[in-house]
């Protein structure tokens, strides 16, 4: 346990020291949030109606782009090799890194997003369902992003290729997350359950896939 905890601590420290962890991600989130209304037209009612979708899409993109280099630095400076040699299973290493990414970036975004919804005058009664759905969904988003990051490790243009590979996997999260947060006012909906199922599944499967990909790059 200690090794993985120290790994998480290190990643969290790095996230805050270099490029300011949640800060940057939040910045990106806001930047896109400004852009979208300009592009889609400032019409109040349209915006209000589209608000949840806009927030979800922005969340997806922020998480994806904040994770695209999650393994790259460890790969380039040789840390990953040493971790792979150690007695810690690489799957757990991936999980630890994914979780620290979630803590440092996705979770703060997921919590902030619904309240930033006021910028799009989001209907206030949606805020809580949205919050719940996003917190759940962000787990899956972080983990899936890790799979993409491991597949495109150190490819120039990785940043884009990862999107092509990962965004398709994001579609279910988006669909069910959206319906969970807009479908109805009561909190626990079928979609929410499916969402949690997706989150759990990715908790198990993503580390396996990512670890396999990393091994391929190390060999």
């Amino acid at each position, binding site marked *: 346990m200690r090794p993985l905890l120290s790994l998480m601590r290190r990643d969290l420290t790095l996230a805050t020291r270099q490029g300011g962890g949640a800060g940057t991600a939040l910045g990106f989130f806001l930047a896109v949030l400004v852009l979208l209304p300009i592009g889609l037209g400032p019409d109040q009612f349209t915006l209000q109606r589209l608000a949840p979708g806009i927030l979800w899409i922005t969340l997806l993109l922020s998480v994806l782009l904040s994770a695209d280099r999650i393994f790259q630095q460890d790969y380039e*400076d040789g840390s990953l090799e040493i971790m792979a*040699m150690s007695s810690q299973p690489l799957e757990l290493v991936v999980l630890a890194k994914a979780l620290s990414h979630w803590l440092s970036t996705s979770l703060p975004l997921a919590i902030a997003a619904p309240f930033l919804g006021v910028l799009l005058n989001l209907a206030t009664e949606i805020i809580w369902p949205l919050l719940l759905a996003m917190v759940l969904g962000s787990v899956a988003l972080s983990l899936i992003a890790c799979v993409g990051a491991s597949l495109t490790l150190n490819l120039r243009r990785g940043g884009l290729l990862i999107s092509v590979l990962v965004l398709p996997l994001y579609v279910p999260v988006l669909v069910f997350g959206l319906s969970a947060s807009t479908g109805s006012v009561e909190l626990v909906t079928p979609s929410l359950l499916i969402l949690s199922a997706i989150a759990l599944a990715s908790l198990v499967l993503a580390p396996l896939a990512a670890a396999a990909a990393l091994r391929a790059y190390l060999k």
Partner: protein
Amino acid sequence: MQIVAANLSCERGGRLAFSNLDFAVAAGEFLQLTGPNGAGKSSLLRIIANLGDISSGHIELHNGDSDLTLAQQSHYIAHADAAKTALTVTENLQFWGDFLGGDNIAGALGSLNLQTLADYPVALLSAGQKRRLALARLSLVPRKIWLLDEPSVGLDEASQGLLVGLMQQHLNAGGLIIAATHVPLGVEPDRNLILQGKS
């Protein structure tokens, strides 16, 4: 404890780096790998560290710690320094200590006298200072097997002396060293494996 390789071949990027290699190193012995660029020294070290694929042949560890793999009992010092530039020297050692299960930070700093640099962010270190940080891992966590890829590169005279001391000490304590190098390391190799590359 003994590492035995039997007609080992390695293919990299579709080309045969080396083929039908046989060697054996026992505890307390130092095997030195030499040979022209591209002969396969680094590749061989990676294979032993289980970071490379064997095309044919096999490599085994006899009566080592049975419930650990060969790689898990080894230190591997490659060209990359495995240090985070945003962390200080101590923080880096702290992390590797926790991760690899060792805590001799003071000893590690001392072993390549990094004490004065302890609190510097690695971003501010010079090439050789970074190299010394990488080598400090050797004393941070005790491991029986050391795999060193051109360990003396970038070290000043003083540090080279320290490295020699470390290696001697490790050998006397029954450790095992396999090191690739182009310059004499200052430690008499017990065995010398010369890889003939064609290019």
